[in-house]
């Protein structure tokens, strides 16, 4: 991914398409593969179909924008986030980011359940914040662990935690540092505490202090609280790009 020069533009996407070639007939066994190969040779039949996961996406995100992305399941939300985050291969110059991007796509991936909360937090710090210095990492970890208020439980195995405690530890880590472009994909879905406890304030601070943010959720109240721009994805395309209120109306109309 290359950097762009304009200081206000954080993200620029040009003509991004992601296609997957899939077999029309599932090929589970050697027999299936044989039949399908012979069919394509003899009948000159195309045994593959192309599925457009993302089709010709063009998008600019500027400093200060907190962009919500909604869409029905399979609309391409997570694929778009992954492409922006680099967890997907795209042509050079398709996606350009001005600064450092950080993304969290799933709140508890990478966890070793047998290890303690403290050990897992250290591991997550290396996965989420790979470029911190030793001192910065130590301070960030200490601050996040203090904030989680798990105290003595920090040295108990993660798999002994209640769902709420697990969420508290992970959200404390996610919200520890802001960055130029923060991408959060459904990380707070199912986390009731998001709106109820003090952690919501910290998460909002991290989002608001970041240069720009992309926030994927199914929750309209979360969108209204966090975002100032809304994109509705439908069948791999940007179907709407504008204000939250208009976007929500549009989203409800396509869901019907």
């Amino acid at each position, binding site marked *: 991914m290359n950097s762009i020069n304009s200081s206000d533009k954080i993200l620029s996407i040009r003509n991004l398409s992601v296609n*997957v070639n899939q077999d029309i007939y599932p090929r589970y066994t050697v027999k299936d593969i044989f039949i399908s190969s012979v069919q394509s040779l003899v009948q000159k039949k195309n045994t593959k179909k192309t599925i457009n*996961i993302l089709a010709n996406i063009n998008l600019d995100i500027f400093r200060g924008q907190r962009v919500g992305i909604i869409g029905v399941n399979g609309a391409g939300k997570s694929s778009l986030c*992954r492409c922006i*985050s*680099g*967890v*997907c*291969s795209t042509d050079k110059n398709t996606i350009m980011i001005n600064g450092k991007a*950080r*993304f*969290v*796509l*799933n709140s508890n*991936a*990478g966890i*070793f359940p*047998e*290890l303690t909360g403290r*050990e897992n937090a*250290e*591991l997550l710090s*290396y*996965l*989420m914040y*790979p*470029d911190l210095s030793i001192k910065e990492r130590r301070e960030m970890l200490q601050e996040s662990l203090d904030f989680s208020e798990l105290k003595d439980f920090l040295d108990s*195995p993660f798999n002994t935690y209640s769902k709420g405690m697990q969420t508290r530890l992970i959200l404390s880590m996610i919200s520890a540092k802001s960055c130029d472009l923060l991408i959060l994909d459904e990380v707070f879905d199912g986390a009731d505490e998001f709106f109820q406890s003090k952690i919501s304030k910290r998460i909002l601070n991290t989002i608001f202090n970041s240069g720009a943010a992309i926030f994927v959720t199914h929750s309209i109240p979360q969108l209204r609280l966090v975002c100032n721009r809304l994109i509705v994805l439908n069948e791999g395309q940007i179907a709407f790009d504008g204000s939250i209120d208009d976007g929500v109306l549009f989203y409800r109309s396509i869901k019907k």
Partner: protein
Amino acid sequence: MIRNSLNQVLILTISNMKSRYRKTIAGFFWVIANPILMFFVQSTVFKKILNIQITGYSVFLLGGLLPWIFIVSTLDMCATILLNNGEVLRSYNINPTVIVLSQVLDNLINFLAAFFILLIVFALLGNIRFAPLLLFPLSLSVLAIFVFSISWIVSILQVFYRDIKFIIQFGTSILYFLTPIFYPQEMVPQNLQYIIELNPLYILISPIRSNVYNFTLDLYVAQIIKAMLVSGITLLIARKLWDIKKNEFYQFLR
């Protein structure tokens, strides 16, 4: 960037090891006990029961069997490692090679621990020459690069073709008998020697064996050059395979 990835390799290796030994009383012992036990069983069976006539057979076996166990166990563990870590790879911006490398490093530590425990025992018994051991780090590095490369290839292929791990298990069981691990290369008839010469696993194991058993500089130089070539080519193939497959990789990773 490389430093960040190395840090991730280290933390994943440490977490993996800690997690494996948690709640076990003997911990690390179980992992190194297996190769040591295998060594003693094979050493006894082939020396005492099958009566293989080789001077210093135990050291000969040490130089072949332990690297073999390292290669095979790493291949077995790495075959499914990218697939099993699909969630991590799809959730953080982490290079897939970090995951493979951390497993190779984990197994390398286990291999070295078992290898040196046995080596010290034989050194105390006066069966080891020290000078050739100075070249051990070179042989080990070449072996480690090969094991990483082949593990990388296998782990990528497993994402696309789920049969790979079965083929690996099946293939390594057969290869064990076709590789001069518990018998010397000289035992193989002349007309079948080409099988040995072309066996990449043996090419990588033989410099390690030379470091502990019957070292001659001429032979070692020939062995290590061959091993470097195989290791380098495997690394290039792995890199090329990743370049070809990386576009589809994340789509298949579920």
